[in-house]
């Protein structure tokens, strides 16, 4: 692998009581790639990205991001280092407007030190909000309460919030779930655009989307990585077939 | 000794009209003593006074005099408040039938303060600035008095409390606050201490509520015991949130001769019952303040254990404790039967040891207004009223002061009257000792007359 390594996990484990959700996962991401993680339900995909984003504490193992050990950092500190997570179930702030939703993300980067707390100009925030909403095509809905948006738009808003955080690694959990055909197409275009600026890590069930977008695919089953490779390699992999077909 | 000295200094500080005032007070109350048959007669008795007051006030004789009555109708003081209200209404009725105060009928404005010091201060403001009453009176619970008094001082409205707290005489309040109708608790304790230590025993365990009312008992009874060769075996302050007491009885040393108890609030029956269960027949002597059992029937289930124990009473609940026609007249007028309960409803027991204070306070106000020539709440009249009141020295026993004669100390704004010690016999209280006024005197710690008005 010639590319620079952005993120690396080593021997990552997570136990929930008796259940070993993630076992000994060594996983690495190159800067600038689009990576998809696939696998059957309960394979440990969401737990893995949960650990990477800091929502879930690992039982053991380490995570390195841009050469720094981030295993002990809180999720909010990881966000500031550029690891951004968008939720599987949309969790935009339903009662707030789209503007407010994105502004919350946009202002985060600006609020550093006491100065940022006290003298933050709304203009700087507004600029970022507009560009993020523009990028996902929601500029027209800026003043609408997020809860009133159709589901597909809420997912886009979620991505806009992610973008406004200026991610280096954008993790998207099931981004196309519940989207209509044409929305999926738009989403793919959007993701490619994002990939120019950030590394993208997707958890996705929709295989056409995965095959179309991902540079590389990681396949998980029962908490371990069972295969990794280009879309073509994965399609041909016998073990992956077995895991999916359950034979 | 101190008494005499006080009088001298008073005469010095308060020269204007002192002599006249004092004499007039005497005449007024003596006239009252002479007239016992009923309201009409009393009116006749005090006739000259009223006339002179009328002459004083000129044409405004029929203008009612508005009195603000701050009462605990709700909250923890409600049981007391109800009887304070009945007593007040009875006294107002009587005074009005006698021709009112300085010829002006009393118009009572009643406001509930919820037994809350914040609301109390608000009520004082409301009475003074919205209802424009002349004076405010009747506040009972100490924390409400203390919370309200600063506002009365700022609004410069005379404020007559009926609280028995030591807050007035301690000097913590201001010159507008008086307690002329009921002896303060420090004096009560001082008065009964020698009897308790002499007759019941010298080794005393004290149980009292862990709040100010209790601290007065703790401080002044302990001091008295020390002075008289007694010993406090244990101090047991009970937190106000407590509902069960048994566990505290275990702290009482076995050589204790007397349990001195004073509890306020709804917990008292539990307290007594648990005391009985704990000690059984091997009990020390027991002395209590009746504050605990005001408005409670002595024959209530659970109180059997009090049989043979002693109580302080402010005014004897059962008829005969004070065997005077005034007492009988007062009892009749406030609607209380021989057992200290409501005539209409014998299950409704009064707060007889305290409520007389409202009655006597109203008569004090009457005397003060009439003798000072007070007409309205102008600074000049208020000052005259206060200075006149401060000049009062004796409040004579009579219809106006049925609980007994009182010494009034103008520097302290506090009166001092007799106290009663009663024994529980056949679930009734029988007076066994009456203290003299002198028993309850202590070295004064304040002088309000030095404050500016």
């Amino acid at each position: 692998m010639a590319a620079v390594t952005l993120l690396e996990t080593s021997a990552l484990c997570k136990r929930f009581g008796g259940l070993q959700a993630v076992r000994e996962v060594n996983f690495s991401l190159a800067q600038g790639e689009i990576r998809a993680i696939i696998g059957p339900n309960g394979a440990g995909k969401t737990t893995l990205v949960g650990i990477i984003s800091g929502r879930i504490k690992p039982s053991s193992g380490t995570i390195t991001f841009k050469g720094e050990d981030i295993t002990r950092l809180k999720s909010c500190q990881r966000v500031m280092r550029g690891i951004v997570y968008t939720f599987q179930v949309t969790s935009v702030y339903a009662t707030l407007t789209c503007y407010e939703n994105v502004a919350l993300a946009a202002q985060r980067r600006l609020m550093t030190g006491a100065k940022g707390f006290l003298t933050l100009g709304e203009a700087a925030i507004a600029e970022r909000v507009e560009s993020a909403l523009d990028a996902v095509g929601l500029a027209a809905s800026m003043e609408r309460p997020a809860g009133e948006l159709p589901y597909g738009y809420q997912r886009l808003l979620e991505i806009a919030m992610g973008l406004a955080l200026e991610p280096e690694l954008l993790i998207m959990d099931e981004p196309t779930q519940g989207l209509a055909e044409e929305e999926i197409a738009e989403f793919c275009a959007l993701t490619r655009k994002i990939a120019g600026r950030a590394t993208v890590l997707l958890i996705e069930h929709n295989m056409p989307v995965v095959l179309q977008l991902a540079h590389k695919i990681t396949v998980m089953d029962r908490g371990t990585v069972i295969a990794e490779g280009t879309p073509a390699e994965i399609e041909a992999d016998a073990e992956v077939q077995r895991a999916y077909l359950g034979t | 000794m101190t008494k005499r000295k006080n009088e001298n200094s008073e005469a010095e500080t308060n020269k204007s009209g002192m002599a006249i005032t004092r004499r007039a007070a005497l005449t007024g109350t003596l006239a009252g003593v002479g007239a016992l048959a009923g309201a009409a007669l009393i009116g006749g008795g005090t006739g000259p006074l009223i006339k002179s007051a009328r002459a004083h006030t000129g044409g405004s004789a029929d203008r009612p005099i508005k009195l603000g009555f701050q009462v605990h109708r709700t909250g923890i003081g409600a049981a007391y408040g109800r009887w304070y209200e009945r007593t007040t209404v009875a006294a107002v009725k009587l005074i009005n039938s006698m021709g009112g105060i300085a010829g002006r009928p009393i118009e009572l404005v009643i406001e509930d303060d919820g037994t809350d010091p914040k609301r109390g201060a608000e009520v004082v403001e409301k009475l003074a600035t919205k209802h424009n009453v002349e004076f405010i009176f009747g506040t009972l619970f100490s924390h409400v008095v203390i919370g309200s008094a600063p506002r009365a001082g700022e609004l410069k409205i005379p404020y007559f409390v009926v609280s028995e707290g030591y807050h007035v005489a301690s000097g913590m309040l201001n010159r507008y606050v008086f307690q002329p109708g009921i002896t303060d608790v420090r004096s009560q304790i001082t008065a009964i201490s020698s009897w308790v230590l002499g007759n019941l025993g010298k080794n005393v365990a004290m149980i009292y509520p862990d709040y100010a009312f209790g601290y007065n008992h703790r401080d002044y009874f302990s001091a008295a015991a020390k002075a008289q060769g007694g010993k406090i075996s244990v101090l047991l302050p009970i937190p106000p949130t407590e509902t069960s007491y048994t566990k505290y009885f275990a702290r009482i040393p076995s050589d204790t001769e007397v349990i001195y108890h004073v509890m306020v609030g709804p917990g008292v029956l539990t307290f007594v019952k648990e005391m009985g269960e704990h000690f059984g027949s091997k009990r020390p002597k027991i002395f209590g303040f009746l504050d605990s059992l005001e408005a409670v029937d002595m024959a209530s289930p659970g109180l059997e254990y009090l049989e043979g124990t002693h109580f302080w009473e402010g005014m004897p609940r059962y008829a005969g404790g004070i065997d005077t026609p005034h007492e009988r007249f007062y009892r009749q007028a406030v609607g209380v039967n021989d057992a200290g309960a409501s005539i209409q409803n014998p299950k409704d027991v009064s707060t007889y040891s305290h409520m007389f204070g409202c009655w006597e306070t109203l008569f004090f106000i009457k005397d003060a207004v009439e003798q000072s020539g007070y007409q309205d709440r102008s600074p000049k009249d208020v000052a005259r009223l206060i200075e006149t009141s401060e000049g009062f020295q004796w409040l004579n026993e009579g219809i106006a002061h049925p609980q007994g004669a009182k010494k009034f100390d103008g520097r302290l704004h506090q009166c001092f009257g007799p106290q009663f010690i009663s024994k529980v016999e056949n679930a009734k209280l029988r007076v066994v000792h009456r203290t003299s006024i002198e028993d309850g005197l202590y070295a004064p710690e304040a002088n309000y007359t030095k404050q500016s008005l």
Partner: protein
Amino acid sequence: MNFGPHLFLAVLEGTVSAFVLAVTALGLSLVFGVMRVVNVAHGVFFMLGAVLAWWSASIVGGQPLLGFGLAMIVAPLVVGAVAVAADWLILRRVNYNPESTIVATIGLLYIIEQMVLILYGPDARPVPAPVYFRVSFPWFGYSGYKLVVIAASAVLLLGTWYGMSKTKLGLYMRATQQDSQMAQAFGVPVRRIYATAFALGAMLAAMAGVLIVPVQQAHYLMGMDPLLLSFIVVIIGGLGSLRGTIIAAFIVGMSDGIISVFFSPTLAKILATLLVAMVLVIRPGGLFGEEEP
């Protein structure tokens, strides 16, 4: 008194208050668990029980046992009816929204308290114990009725446990507690279960009130302390955990009694309060509640 007997007495006292507290708190816990709402009026249900016990006693006159029996029937019925009415008229209409329910039940608390003040008066009124005997220990005497309170409370606790674990109603309640939508889907009449839980919770409080009143007198403001203590117990025990509630009632009741042996009364109360608060700080989900995510 020597240390040993003193401690024994404190434990005895702690046991009595723990049992009564357990019954009261169990009612609150039931409401909490099944409906996920905080009932601030729980204390006044307790008070209503006590006041109704006085009323029953004064109706039958000199027969304490009869009065007590009557109270044990009348108090839960009346209070249960009040609770059902409150559920129907208010809680249901605010959709059991947690915050609205807190406000509504504060309103209810004021209304009931003032009604009692008007109808019953401000006095603390005693109620004779149905059975009275004094138990003499070598060092001190003790109220026999308090031992009866322990027994009666134990019966109520067992009854509730039986009801919750062995009857269809209990099954419905547990199902609703786990997931009300799922329960509804399986044909559990959730609305009626809510009303029933609210009423049962109130009835337990009322019966605790009846039990305690011969020890404590009926007074219109007496509901506040049991309310606060029940709150604490329910939270410490873990939301909706009946077993936790009962264990927590013992921790709270006992710590109050035993700490009072070592410190002056008010200091003991302060320490007991802080101790219990720290349990929550260290285990925010309560001792037996689910770990917070």
